[in-house]
């Protein structure tokens, strides 16, 4: 869980960036570490990264925007990912995600009004022999059902 960084300062960002400089191909590990710390890639990190790696802002933006994982705005507090890939479709994955989205009154990627939950599609969690699959924050759910997912959500008061 990322800690509160309303007082994000450049020293924190610089420390993370510097820690990765010795690596070969440091950019992805750096971005992962920043997102782990702040919950997203803060705007203020961009000039620091560009300076440290000697790349342009355009190049950096190209990388950040290419990968589904990287966010540029704070995310909802909790995330529910439901697999949309073929093996899950073979056992009713689409119907399951339709019902979950309807139950929560949300669309894919749309955060709940209180900012506490977002439901995102994922393409394969490697749980294809116990599909449909879902993941709530870090916790994997095999043979996912409306009941199992509702129970998981209610355990954290959602």
């Amino acid at each position, binding site marked *: 869980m990322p800690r509160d960084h309303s007082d994000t300062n450049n020293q924190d960002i610089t420390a993370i960036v510097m820690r990765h400089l010795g*690596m*070969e*191909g*440091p*950019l*992805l*590990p750096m*971005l*992962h570490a920043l997102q782990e710390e702040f919950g997203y890639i803060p705007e203020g990190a961009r000039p620091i990264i560009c300076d440290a*790696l000697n790349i342009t802002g355009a190049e950096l933006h*190209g*990388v950040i925007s*290419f*990968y*589904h*994982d*990287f966010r540029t705005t704070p995310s909802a507090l909790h995330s529910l990912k439901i*697999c949309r*890939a*073929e*093996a*899950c*479709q*073979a*056992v009713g994955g689409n119907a399951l995600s339709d019902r979950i989205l309807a139950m929560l009154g949300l669309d894919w990627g749309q955060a709940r009004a209180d900012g506490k939950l977002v439901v995102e599609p*994922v*393409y*394969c*969690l*490697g*749980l*294809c*022999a*116990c*599909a449909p*699959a879902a993941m709530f924050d*870090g916790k*994997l*759910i*095999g*043979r996912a059902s409306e009941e199992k997912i509702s129970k998981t959500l209610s355990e954290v008061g959602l």
Partner: protein
Amino acid sequence: MKKIYLPRDAAAKALGSDEVAAALADALSARGEEAQIIRNGSRGMIWLEPLVEIEENGTRFAYGPIAADQVEDLLAGKIKTLGPVEEIPFFAKQNRLTFARCGLIDPLNLADYGAHGGLTGLARAAAMSAADIVAEVIASGLRGRGGAGFPTGIKWKTVSEAAGPQKYIVCNADEGDSGTFADRMIMEGDPFCLIEGMAIAGLATGATRGFVYIRSEYPDAIEVMEEAVNIARAEGVLGADVLGSGKAFDLEIRVGAGAYVCGEETSLLNSLEGKRGVVRAKPPLPALEGFMGRPTVVNNVLSLATIPVIFEKGAAHYASFGLGRSKGTMPIQIAGNVARGGLFETAFGMPLGELVNDIAGGTATGCPVKAVQVGGPLGAYMPPSKFDTPFAYEEFDGQGGLIGHAGVVVFDDSADMVQMARFAMEFCAVESCGKCTPCRIGARRGVETIDRIAAGDATAIPLLTDLCETMKDGSLCALGGFTPYPVMSALQNFPDEFRATPANQAAE
């Protein structure tokens, strides 16, 4: 002390194995019983997970699936065993070479690994010349398990003979294909096996550095691999002096960022370098100009994890399994709508129908099998009329399919093949890296064209066929180039569905 095995594999966890482990520990202490709970990898019988194994007089008896609230009954002997785990028919019918230790040992216990044949191959390779190591891999007939099926030994030979101040071994663990989970299972269940295979690749090619690029959707695999690398380094399996050979090899775990296309080797290399995961045109081959423009072996997890057993038991032993030019064994992943889903490692050549009907027991719903998608999102939909096709590279190619990473996804008769074809195009559009036009634009036009067909416009069918030809011939990599496989196989094997659309029905 009594030993109880319970998997830490992600699929077992997703079905509650952590909760079972906690309940077991509580129940044992409540009963005043002492037992060692070992969190092993999965045996691959996913429909039985969480699968508890209790060792009695050296035999491991299987119980499963076990829920947390059944633990008291389990310890009280009130639950019937499935028998010795290795005698369960699904398991007994396999030829486990690559997965020999997966589920058998504690994945992070190096001594346990060594006691079950681990490091024997590396020790043997360390005493061989680089050329002899390469010759052994060529003799084994091992082909790239990521899907392309290129001979692994030939790739190593190219890198071995290439000049460069630094060479690399890159393990492609970006297992994004739906229906596949063998890479995940071996990384979680026998991580040292992959490390050993990479170290042998290093000795063979003169590469001293390696990377395992694991997709971010696999947090458990990342955790186990990182821990295993630390242990291997501390014990001298990795580092400046690999097993006392005087040769250096070390590796790092890197994490992807949610891009399917990074499973393609050149876009993986770009991603590893910190760039957009855009495909590179070949040539130059990664073997000559790979990571940082230097000679690089890029191999799939399963290819590298099969190396140790080839050196432990000899190339001839490995090559004695298989069919035609498909030598050895393949860990086949059976998934989707099946009664018995899981990992089934067998010699190449088993007919597809035997896998689906006998091994997997048909569909979970009990309805007839309609189609089987083999090889992930880029693999063809095979109808039951093609079930006599032997599971092997050339044989599948001859039937307009591919084995890919050997994922088998079974669909029952409720599957809507027009929608499955549409999904293939939609997925390609979402995941296209954008570099080449046939893939970037073609996939979007493909979705629109299939929508026209679904709305009853049969004149769009030749257009779709033509578009697929263009994507197949004109795309830079397998994403755009192979998306036509699921689309065209759905169209060719289930033509009525593409014509029995609302408008046609209304006209009848």
